[in-house]
């Protein structure tokens, strides 16, 4: 990962290689929900280069810290999505099982 400027730690551009809209847009969403962030956006400089630039500007905190927290938040969200999904599948299977039993009786 490359860093833009080191002069002002509250405004940085992070360049992620081997990533695309999948991660960058999700991170943009989570970063924008963080009250410490004043501006956040991303761009893909060239479509045939697997690289995204994520710009983060904060109210004063280190942009890298804020980005790290956002990644952690996104991981927590994903974990919650996964658990909710697995519960929903179990619930569906159980209801299907009781339904099919009701038919055989």
């Amino acid at each position, binding site marked *: 990962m490359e860093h833009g400027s080191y002069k002002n730690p509250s405004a940085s551009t992070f360049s992620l290689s081997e990533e695309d809209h999948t991660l960058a847009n999700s991170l*943009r969403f989570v970063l924008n929900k963080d009250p410490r962030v004043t501006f956040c956006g991303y761009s893909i400089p060239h479509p045939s280069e697997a690289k995204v630039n994520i710009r983060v500007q904060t109210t004063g905190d280190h942009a890298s810290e804020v980005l790290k927290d956002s990644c952690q938040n996104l991981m927590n969200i994903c974990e919650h999505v996964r658990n909710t999904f697995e519960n929903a599948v179990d*619930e569906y299977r159980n209801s299907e099982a009781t339904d099919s039993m009701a038919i055989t009786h």
Partner: protein
Amino acid sequence: MPELPEHLELKRTRVSCNFDAPTDTEPILYSGAYASMGVDNTNMEDFFKNFKIKINRLTEDEIEFDMVGIDAALANAFRRILIAEVPTMAIEKVFIANNTSVIQDEVLAHRLGLIPLNVDPRLFEYKSEKDLPNEKNTIVFGLHARCERGAPRNTVKSDELKWLPNGSEFLLATEDNDSDPAAKARTYTSFSCGQDSLPEFSVNPICARHPDITIARLGPGQEIELEAHAVKGVGKEHAKWSPVATAWYRMLPEVVLLQDVYDEKAEKLVRKCPVNVFDIEDVANGRKAVVARPRACTLCRECIREEGWDQYVALRRKRDHFIFTIESTGALPPEVLFTEAVKILEDKCERVITELS
């Protein structure tokens, strides 16, 4: 906590589909967007409280579920990962010993690559260019089909791909053949053990997912003899590794009658809709149109196309409600595919965190 006025709440939570173009398509993400009205747009805690999933349909290779309370950025990330980044096994190298059929070698190899294989890719490793093919990264299939002279034409189907658990049976050409005839001749793979000795494959032998995919048709006297090596890969390199036929979502349609519609006008409205969203109910003061099946709405906008009808009907979409469908090609069941996709997004975050620290 103060609430947003109705017109802003509508813009925040709905996409409007007007007769000419949709409006309010972009979600308002910024946490301080409504700060001047005392409303917090962060609501991360709300997500953990309100996020819901309900399975509508689950079969061997298809799932449809409702995902409520999540942003399109994440729903789209899951969809993109499902299509391009969840790994599967697919035939990558084909060694053709003999092919006298009318189908050319390269076309045949391409057809073989697209055949879905019934094997869990999580049991295998990626094979890089410099790795030797071994039992952990390669699956070998043999195919030998011929049509005898005088026999009618026959069709080679995917069930004729025979899994070779001990690896390749084709010998490597070596320069010093006569140096040590007792030494075991080397083949195109270097398996240290047979894959069929592993417990996960002995009960569930590897084969093509569907036995009836046509590979080639042979005329009398024609023959195909080849070996196909399958490796692990992801859909963004080649679509043959994509674990889904398609994965898609749509936002929940919302059809609202802005004014009561009665009698002849109601019947006209019912006739307008090609997917029967509206019904007629008998009430005290006449026959009234009601929205009976909003989920069926395809937002074709036929009901508001005629002049003035957008005064009666509003077509909207709920911004945070997704009807998500996954069609698996068969390597993994669809519900496993989704959990795998979410895990991959987590791994991506993990990677960024380690690079930042």
